C-alpha cells in the first residue's frame, strides 16, 4: 500500500493545466449529455414507418376462397330472413366496418392517419385491405389473445408463484401470430407438461392449483369446467352437484367422468406431470362413501384414441375434426369478438343438435375445420359475410330498425364497448397518428398508464364479457369530468389532436370534419357540421379552441362513442 499522505508530485498536473482540463471535461460532459438526451428524446418520440400489409393482393386465391365461403354463409342467412319475412338493413359504409374491425381486433378505434390510409385504397376492397393490415398488426394478436385467455383462465391473478397469466397471454398471441392451427394450440393447453415459466401453455393447468393443506395440485373440477365451456360450448358443470333439473341431458356422472381425465395431473418440482396411479375420487350427493370414477367422454366416444395419457386422450377427443362442438365453440367466440354478441347465447352453451343451431353456424364450423382451424381465415370469412357488413340503422327514417331485425342478424347489433375499448379510444381519438408498436415509445407508455387508470375506475367486465351489462353512473362521471378526458382535450400542441386540428385546419368545416373522423370514424351530418361550423366561425384562436374542446367533449360523451354500431 502506498503512502497516501505524500503524493508523487509528478503524477499531479499543475494547477492551471488542471483547471483547463476540468473545463474541457465539463464541456465534454455537457456535450455528451445533450447529445445523449437528444438521441433518447429522438428514440422516445420517433415514429416508425407503418408498411402496407405484406399479404394483401385483392385477387389472390386465399381471398377469393374467403369470398366464396362468405357467399355460402350469406345464402344461409338470406334463406333465414326469407323464412322469417324480415328484410335486412342496408349495407354499412366502409369506415363503419373498419371501425368495428379495429375495435374487435385491436381494442381501439382507427386513428385519423389510418382513416386516411383506408380511404386511399380503391373502393371495392377497402375492408379486406384494412383487415389484412389489422391481422398483421401485433396489437391484434395481443388483444385477441387477451380475449381468448378470459375464457380459458378467467381474469384472476390466480395462485401465487406457480401461475403466470401474462406469459400465457403472450404465448396465445404468438400462436395467433404464427397462424398455428387452433386445434393444435388447444391440444397443447390441455396436455401441457412442465414448468409454467418455460412452457407457458402449462399455465392453463396451473391456474387451477389450490394452495391449501388438503391438496397441492391442479383442480380437476375447475379444469373440467374450463374445458367444457371454453372448448366444447357445453355447460355440464351445473350437474357437478346434482343431476340436470331441466333437460336430463347430463348426469352428475358425466361431469365427473370428464373431470377424471385431469386426475393424473399433478405438480412436481419440474412442473406439471402426470401420475398414472392417481384417480378421481368423488362423493356423489346422497352417497356416504367416495367412489372412484374412471375417465369417460360425455358424447362421441368413438373419437377418442386408445393411446396416450388421459390428458392426451382428452385433448385429441376434444379437438377431433369430427367433434363439431369444438369448431362451433371457436366460431361462436370469434363471431362474438367481431360482432359484439355471440351467434349462440350464452356463448358457452351451444346445442349439440344441428337442427337447433342458427344459420351460418354449421357452414362456418365446416369451413374452419377444412381450413386447418385457421383463426385468421375464420375472422376473414365472418368479416366478409353479409350480416357483419350490414348497417346498424335503417336509411329510411320512417322505418327504423326493429327488434326482429336485430334478433335475426338482419341489422348489426348495438353493443356497449368494453372498458378498455373506451379507454383506448379516448386516448387514440386525442392523437392524430396511430398508437401502435410503431408509435413513439413515450406515447405508447403514456397510453398504457392512462388505459390502466381509466379501466380501474370504469370497471372491468371480467370474463362474463358477453353478458348483457348495464352502464354505470361512475362511467358517465368519468367521461364527463374525468382527468383523462380533460388532459386529452386540453390545449397541448405536442400531443393533443384537438390543439393540432385547431391550428392546422384551414377552415372551420375541415376542423369539424377532422374531429368527427378522429372520434366517430365518420364525417359529420349536414346538421352537425352546420351546428359546429357556426360556433367556430368568426372566433379568435382561443375561443376556437374552447369550441373545439367542447366539440370533443360532446362526441366523447355521446352514445355513438361508447357503443359498437
Amino acid at each position, binding site marked *: 500500500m502506498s503512502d497516501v499522505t505524500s503524493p508523487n508530485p509528478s503524477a499531479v498536473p499543475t494547477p492551471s493545466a488542471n483547471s483547463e482540463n476540468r473545463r474541457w471535461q465539463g464541456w465534454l460532459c455537457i456535450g455528451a449529455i445533450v447529445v445523449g438526451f437528444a438521441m433518447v428524446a429522438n428514440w422516445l418520440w420517433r415514429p416508425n414507418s407503418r408498411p402496407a400489409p405484406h399479404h394483401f393482393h385483392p385477387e389472390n386465391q386465399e381471398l377469393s376462397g374467403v369470398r366464396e365461403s362468405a357467399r355460402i354463409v350469406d345464402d344461409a342467412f338470406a334463406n333465414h330472413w326469407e323464412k322469417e319475412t324480415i328484410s335486412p338493413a342496408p349495407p354499412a359504409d366502409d369506415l363503419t366496418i373498419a371501425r368495428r374491425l379495429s375495435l374487435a381486433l385491436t381494442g381501439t378505434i382507427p386513428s385519423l392517419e389510418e382513416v386516411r390510409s383506408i380511404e386511399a385504397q380503391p373502393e371495392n376492397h377497402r375492408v379486406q385491405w384494412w383487415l389484412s393490415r389489422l391481422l398483421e398488426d401485433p396489437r391484434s394478436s395481443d388483444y385477441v389473445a387477451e380475449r381468448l385467455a378470459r375464457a380459458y383462465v378467467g381474469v384472476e391473478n390466480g395462485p401465487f408463484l406457480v401461475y403466470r397469466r401474462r406469459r400465457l397471454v403472450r404465448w396465445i398471441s404468438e400462436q395467433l401470430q404464427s397462424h398455428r392451427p387452433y386445434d393444435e394450440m388447444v391440444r397443447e393447453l390441455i396436455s401441457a407438461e412442465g414448468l409454467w415459466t418455460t412452457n407457458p401453455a402449462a399455465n392453463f393447468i396451473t391456474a387451477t392449483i389450490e394452495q391449501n393443506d388438503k391438496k397441492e395440485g391442479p383442480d380437476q373440477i375447475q379444469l373440467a369446467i374450463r374445458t367444457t365451456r371454453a372448448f366444447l360450448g357445453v355447460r355440464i358443470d351445473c350437474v357437478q352437484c346434482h343431476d340436470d333439473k331441466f333437460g336430463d341431458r347430463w348426469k352428475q356422472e358425466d361431469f365427473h367422468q370428464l373431470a377424471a381425465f385431469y386426475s393424473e395431473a399433478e405438480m412436481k418440482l419440474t412442473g406439471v406431470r402426470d401420475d398414472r396411479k392417481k384417480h378421481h375420487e368423488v362423493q356423489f350427493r346422497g352417497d356416504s362413501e367416495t367412489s372412484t370414477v374412471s375417465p369417460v367422454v360425455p358424447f362421441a366416444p368413438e373419437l377418442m384414441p386408445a393411446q396416450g395419457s388421459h390428458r392426451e386422450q382428452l385433448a385429441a377427443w376434444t379437438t377431433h375434426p369430427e367433434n363439431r362442438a369444438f369448431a362451433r365453440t371457436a366460431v361462436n367466440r370469434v363471431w362474438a369478438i367481431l360482432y359484439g354478441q355471440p351467434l349462440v347465447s350464452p356463448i358457452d352453451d351451444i346445442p349439440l343438435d344441428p337442427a337447433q343451431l342458427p344459420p351460418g353456424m354449421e357452414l362456418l364450423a365446416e369451413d374452419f375445420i377444412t381450413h386447418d382451424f385457421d383463426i385468421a381465415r375464420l375472422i376473414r370469412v365472418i368479416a366478409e359475410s353479409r350480416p357483419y357488413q350490414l348497417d346498424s340503422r335503417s*336509411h329510411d327514417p320512417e322505418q*327504423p330498425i326493429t327488434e326482429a331485425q336485430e334478433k335475426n342478424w338482419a341489422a348489426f347489433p348495438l353493443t356497449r364497448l368494453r372498458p378498455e375499448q373506451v379507454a383506448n379510444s379516448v386516448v387514440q381519438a386525442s392523437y392524430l397518428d396511430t398508437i401502435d408498436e410503431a408509435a413513439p415509445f413515450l406515447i405508447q407508455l403514456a397510453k398504457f398508464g392512462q388505459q390502466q387508470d381509466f379501466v380501474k375506475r370504469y370497471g372491468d367486465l371480467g370474463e362474463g364479457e358477453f353478458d348483457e351489462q348495464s352502464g354505470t353512473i361512475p362511467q358517465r362521471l368519468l367521461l364527463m*369530468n374525468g382527468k383523462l378526458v380533460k388532459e386529452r382535450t386540453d390545449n397541448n400542441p405536442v400531443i393533443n389532436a384537438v390543439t393540432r386540428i385547431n391550428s392546422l385546419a384551414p377552415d372551420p368545416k375541415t376542423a369539424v370534419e377532422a374531429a368527427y373522423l378522429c372520434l366517430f370514424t365518420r364525417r359529420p351530418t349536414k346538421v352537425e357540421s352546420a351546428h359546429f361550423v357556426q360556433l367556430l366561425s368568426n372566433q379568435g384562436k382561443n375561443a376556437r379552441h374552447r369550441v373545439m374542446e367542447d366539440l370533443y367533449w360532446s362526441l366523447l360523451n355521446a352514445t355513438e362513442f361508447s357503443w359498437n354500431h
Partner: protein
Amino acid sequence: MNPFFNHACGTSDHWSRRTLLKTAGLSGLGWLTPLADSLAIQSEKNRTRPRSVILLWMQGGISQLDTFDPHPDTEVAYGARTIKTALPGIQLGESLVQTAELLPEMTLVRSMVSLEGDHERAMYQAKTGYRINPSVLHASLGSIICHELPDSQLDIPTHVSILPSQWPARGGYLGAQWDAFKIGDPTQAIPDVSSRVDDERTKQRLADLNVVEGAFAQGRAANLGSERTLHRDLMAKARRMMSSDQLAAFDVKQAPAAERDAYGDTPFGRGCLAAVRLIESGVRCVEVTLNGWDTHANNAEGQQTQAAILDTAMAALIRDLKNRDLLDETIVVCGSEFGRTPKQNPLEGRDHWPHGFSIALAGGGFRKGYVHGSTSPSMEKTEPADKVMVADIHATIQHALGIDPEYEYMTPANRPIAFSEGRVRRELLADA
C-alpha cells in the same frame, strides 16, 4: 327543452324520509300524494329492522390471536399480552383498549372457518359467500343488499367502498351498476363529481351533445335511449349526483373537530367517519378497508400497529352510530378473509389460517355482549367449537335485514343462484 337538463331535481326527490315524516306530522297527512304516503309508511316499517351495513375490511388477514381471540400464556400466544374487557371472563389483545369496553354492545364470533387460504380466493369467498367458480361472477353481500333494499331518494351511490383494496365489492351477476363506488381518503375530493367547466359552457356542451345524439338516433328504434342504451338516463343521474347536497356526507372536513379526533388521525379513521355520515344520508352499504394485516414477518409488531388504528376508529364508529340513533338499524361487521397461524414462522410472522379465526359484529339486531364459539390453543389444526362458515355470516346478515338468503336469483346466464348458501345462525341474533 334539453333532455339533459330534465333530471329529477323536483322537491319531493330531495326530501329525506325523516323530513317527509316530520312535515307530514306538522301539516297532517292530507296533502301527501299516495306515493309520498307509501314512502312514509315504508319508512316506518324500515325503522323496525336494520337497513344498512358497514363492513370494516381488514385486508390481508387480521390475527385472531393478537386481537379478538387471544390465548394468553399458551405456546400459541408467543408472549402476546391481553386485557380484560367489560364482559367477565373475556379477554382481547392488548391494543383493543376501547373495543374491550364496547364488547357488551357487540357479538364476537371466534370460530370462523373459510375454505380458502389464498388472499384472492378467500377474499372472493368472504365478500360473496361463494367460492370462485369459473362459470359465474357472484354478487358481493353489499350489492345484494343494495339491490334488494333500493332507495329512490338517494342521489349518491348506495354502495360505497372507501380506500378500496385490490378487490372492492362487485355487483357480479347483478350487474356493474351495483359495484361499490370507490373513493380514497375522505380528505380528498370525490373523483369526477365536479364539472371541469363553468355552467355556461356546460350548457353549451349539453346543447352540442343534443345535436350529436339526434344524428345517432336517425334510423334507429325510438326506444333507443329510453330503454336500450339508457345513456340519457345515466347521464341525468350522474348530473343529479353532481349537484346533490348529499355529496356533503363524503366530506369529513365538515364534521366538528372533536368528532374527527375521536376516530383517530388516520385515513381509515376518516373512512369510518365518512361511513357513518353516508349511512345517515341513506347509503345502504359502505366498506372501509384497513390494509397491512398480512404479517408474514414481525407479526406482533405489525398487528399491534394496525389494531391500534382499528380500535380507535371502530370504537368511535360504534359510539357515533349509537349517539345518532343509528346503531339498531346498522349492522357493523369487522373481519378479514382469514386469520393467522397459531405457529409462528422463522421470521416471527404468522401465515394464512382459514381454520378458526374471528369476526366482530355490532348493532342491527345482533346479540349484544355475546361471544360465539372457541378455538383451542393448539399449534395444529383443530376444528373450532360451534364453527361458523363464512357463508353463514352472509345468510345471517341477509336474514337480519329481511332478505331471504334462500331466494334464487336468476342470473343473466339463466342460472338460478341463492343469495347465500349459508345457514342463518339465529343464535347470533338478539331475537333468537
